[in-house]
């Protein structure tokens, strides 16, 4: 019957994927329109939980966008060939996720129409304002970095550009962490550990996303990824997961040591309902222990993908606990007293995300997906490994 060439089928698949991504992005735009029209009252957010699900998605995308560049840095800064071959794809992914994450953050604003105000009025003591500069700078630097990789005459500049991206990325994720670290009064935040924690988390999440996209694009192009390369990056993911687990443990242990923080820790780790469940079941078990078992179990080979997917799911669980759980625990305005009021003083704040927030979050993922798909298709971002992988 029909004897379509594989190329034809691939073209069809490309447009189907694009259409699917487009539909999800469109659903996100619909959610934004509704939120604009009716106000944030149609979301689950309120005056106690002021940042909700959109921020979980946005911060995942932004943190992972920085972390995925680690692949490029190991190549350009530390000169590892198998990573260097993957730098273009990592850069593309970073731009795509940064765009998706920033879009979600911007469209969740109460007045997204005033984004020009944010661009023209910079308060130098505000971490948000700094992040506007850091994110725009990141975009520009990655584009320059890609240019030095893809334009032969610019090749000599590749290493300096790579180092600049490497440094900027650290500052960027520090900035993301500082948004929370600078909150003096909140029990969950206001810790200097948060920026380094975010950096290590970004390594793990970025690499996990990279594994996923790499596997899909290899399958797409009928190419087989060298098993040795997969093993190496899989073990690297293991190290990053252990690193983030360590910082998470230190964060909670220091809190547990301070009498003033014990009630908060009890809430997050034991009594808080959905939050301890997501923390232990979602983040620790699914997002760390299981991936580590999959990565380090002797003799097993092709489980890099499942480990990566679990790490990503764990990331969402952790961010939900960190962002929403951190606000749900009542702000301690009167230490040593139990408080009650009409404004939620002394009470655990309740939050149930609405479908609009979910659609907006997925809209951000869809934008990242579309940018990646088009990028991989239009420009050659595929890793070009030499036959010999040993360095």
């Amino acid at each position, binding site marked *: 019957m029909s004897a379509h060439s594989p190329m034809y089928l691939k073209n069809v698949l490309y447009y189907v994927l694009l259409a699917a991504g487009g539909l999800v992005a469109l659903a996100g735009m619909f959610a934004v329109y509704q939120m604009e029209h009716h106000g944030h009252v149609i979301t689950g957010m309120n*005056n106690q939980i*002021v940042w909700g699900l959109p921020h979980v998605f946005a911060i995942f995308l932004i943190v992972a966008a920085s972390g995925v560049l680690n692949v490029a840095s190991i190549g350009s800064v530390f000169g590892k060939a198998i990573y260097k071959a993957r730098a273009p794809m990592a850069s593309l992914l970073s731009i795509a996720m940064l765009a998706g994450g920033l879009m979600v953050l911007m469209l969740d604003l109460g007045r997204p129409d005033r984004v020009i105000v944010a661009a023209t009025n910079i308060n130098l003591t*505000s971490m948000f304002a700094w992040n506007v500069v850091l994110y725009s700078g990141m975009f520009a630097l990655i584009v320059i970095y890609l240019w030095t990789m893809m334009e032969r005459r610019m090749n000599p500049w590749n290493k300096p550009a790579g180092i600049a991206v490497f440094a900027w990325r650290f500052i960027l994720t520090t900035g993301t962490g500082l948004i929370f670290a600078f909150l003096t*009064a909140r029990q969950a935040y206001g810790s200097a550990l948060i920026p380094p924690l975010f950096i290590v988390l970004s390594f793990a999440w970025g690499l996990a996303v990279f594994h996923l996209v790499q596997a899909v694009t290899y399958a797409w192009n009928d190419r087989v990824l060298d098993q040795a390369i997969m093993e190496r990056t899989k073990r690297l993911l293991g190290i990053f997961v252990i690193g983030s687990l360590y910082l998470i443990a230190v964060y909670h242990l220091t809190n547990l040591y301070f009498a003033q923080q014990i009630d908060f820790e009890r809430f997050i780790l034991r009594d808080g309902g959905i939050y301890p469940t997501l923390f232990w079941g979602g983040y620790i078990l699914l997002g760390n222990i299981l991936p580590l078992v999959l990565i380090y179990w002797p003799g097993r080979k092709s489980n890099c993908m499942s480990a990566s997917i679990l790490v990503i799911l764990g990331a969402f669980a952790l961010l939900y606990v960190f962002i929403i759980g951190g606000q749900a625990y009542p*702000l301690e*305005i*009167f230490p040593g007293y139990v408080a*009650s009021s009409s404004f939620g003083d002394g009470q655990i704040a309740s939050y149930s995300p609405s479908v609009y927030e979910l659609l907006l979050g997925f809209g951000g993922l869809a934008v990242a997906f579309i940018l990646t798909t088009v990028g991989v298709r239009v420009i050659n971002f595929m890793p070009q490994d030499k036959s010999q992988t040993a360095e």
Partner: protein
Amino acid sequence: MSDIDLPRRSFFKTSIGAAAIAIAPGILLFDMAHGKSQPVSGKVRWGMLIDTAQCQDGCNDCVTACNKENGLSGSTGPTDSQWIRKVEIKSISTGRKVSLPMMCQHCEHPPCVDVCPTNASFKRADGIVLVDRHRCIGCRYCMMACPYKARSFVHEPLSDQNPDVPRGKGTVESCTLCVHRIDKGQQPACVESCSNKAILFGDLNDPNSEIAQKIRAVATVEVRANLRLNTGVRYQGL
């Protein structure tokens, strides 16, 4: 016959009259909107002293007055704005109960102003912390930063606003210390409404003001004094 073109003359008269009538309200409104032409003085620091011994458990008069003055609905759902609220606190160790009003503490070093990306949150020269509704992009970072949960986000479209107190969907708002009343030489609505005189309002910088004399004479505290924000609102009997 005279050369004077009467219809033409009356046409000019009518035109000038109509133009004056058309422009005058505009000039008047422009004047009103700009209020006093001289800037507020940095020598003044407005503040409040709240005597918790005089604040009655169950009394909500200050909250009601605030809602009325500022055009708030008075609803207390999770997405409704509350600029001032009554908080009942009970000491964990001694069991002592206190009832007090809580609102923006008008800090000297306000965390909301520090974190605001667009400078929409600002502190006036006389110490009043305000939100510029034209600059606020609704990011809610100030709500995360405020140690007193003093701020609310407008979650819904608004109607029937008080012209003196403009508000806007998608922006953050909080107690303005009734700045529109202060600028007219009046006291904040909550102060005026308290029948027990539990709230004393005045200039903290003027050594002869009643509030300055009182905070020199009796023990008063700032809420979360450990944060060193130097609040403009102080409490007695906490």
